[in-house]
């Protein structure tokens, strides 16, 4: 488990820098959005899901997530075929915020190049360092915004 700067970022998961997470389950990869994303972006209004059977590449945008202020990207953490999507995220659009690593998962990928691509993701000890830099970057931007209003 890992809670860094107030964000729950389990370090056994693999993270793409665009804040999707990947969990390896018997060669398949379950994907969702991180606690950092859901806290920063706010309540999820709608998830524009891809279709089962779609082939995607690591780093490719495979869905859109609308929050109150933002339409963010769901970026595929690994390449492969989408074999399952979680329709429940639109039946109850609160579950990504309430349970981002559980009921709020978004899709499952049958990975095509898993071993190599996991190396491109953030994992283990590197998660805390990454989140600290993300928080710092966000705070700097926020401060810049405050200056603009003074």
């Amino acid at each position, binding site marked *: 488990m890992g809670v860094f700067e107030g964000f729950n970022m389990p370090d056994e998961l693999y993270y793409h820098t665009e804040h999707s997470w990947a969990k390896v389950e018997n060669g398949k990869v379950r994907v969702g959005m991180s606690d950092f994303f859901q806290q920063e*972006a706010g309540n999820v209004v*709608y998830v524009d899901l891809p279709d089962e059977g779609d082939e995607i590449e690591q780093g490719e945008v495979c869905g859109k997530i609308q929050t109150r202020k933002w339409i*963010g990207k769901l970026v595929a953490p690994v390449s492969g075929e989408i074999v399952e999507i979680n329709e429940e995220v639109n039946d109850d659009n609160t579950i990504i915020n309430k349970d981002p690593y559980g009921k709020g998962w978004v899709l499952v990928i049958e990975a095509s190049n898993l071993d190599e691509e996991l190396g491109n993701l953030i994992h283990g000890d590197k998660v805390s360092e990454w989140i600290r830099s993300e928080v710092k*970057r*966000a705070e*700097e*931007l926020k401060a810049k915004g405050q200056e*603009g*209003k003074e």
Partner: protein
Amino acid sequence: MMETWRYIKEWDKLVSTAYGLSVDDTLPYSIHEENSPPILHLYRFKPSVIVGKYQDIRAALKIDRCRERGIEYNRRSTGGGTVIMGEKTVALGFGISMKHPKMNGGIRGIFDILGGVIINSLRKFGISASFRPKNDIEVNGRKIAGLSASTEVGDALLFHTSLLIDFDIPLMLDIMNTPAEKIYDKGYSCFSERMTTMEKELGRKIEVQEVMEAVKESFKETFDINFIEDHLTQTEKGRVEWFIKKRYTCEEWIFSKRHPKFKMGEGLLKTPGGLLQVYISLAGELIESLMITGDFFSTSANINKIESALKFVPADRRDIENTLGSMWKENLIYGIDTSMLTSAILKAKENCG
């Protein structure tokens, strides 16, 4: 050396929704694929109404009335709610890379910094505005501008704003479905208490060009850059044509079914502070919009603050009470507490059909 950004100004004509939105949608592509410097597009639409990317357009608008009155309707590619556009509303499209040093990446703060640009523009006219989290600019509790954004391609951001110089509330009530439909006779005051315009604040007419100039200057000051007045390149014009054909004149896009389930309802509750009437619209399980009226004592600014805080909060007791609890002060609504207001909201939710 000071950076030079691109400025595309179209103040002297009213453009169709298909054209204006298509130009805006090309901006992030120019940033991402042609390595263009950031681009500011200021323009005006023909009389029109535009819904957010994931809104249910049939639930939001009276399509037949729009057609009868010759009001264009369309769907933009950024989020947020319905906006009415016309000759006295400034439309702003802005494209920039999230990795641009002036933006510094990240989600938090984008609206703060770009909202700050609009606030600074209004200050040039002596209007003291502030940012109302998470995507409105307000003056004394009344909305004057709405902000929305999306990232469609790479790290390029598209930011949209509509800034009200003047506004036709009767038109809005005629073409939009609002939670306050059942109190149509009170509709005008309901909305005039919740929104304002630059002309209303200043009590005089303002030229659109003046406002556009102020917005441009505000960008220059905020980001410490210069602008060059520019036109679309041939590549960009080609992309605009593509978006017009494949997106903004396409029924599949305009009447997209990709949206949460939309419901509206009304809740009434007698309280020691008076009758509390709540009109609610739900997007899935979230409160999309809320209107609180009744014969209680409060101020418009307080009511607007409460309504704004509850937008896009899950419509369940715990989340509503937590949200109200974090902002509540004694006598925000005289004789009414957070528990009573929550009960009225939940009644409205129960009555949603």
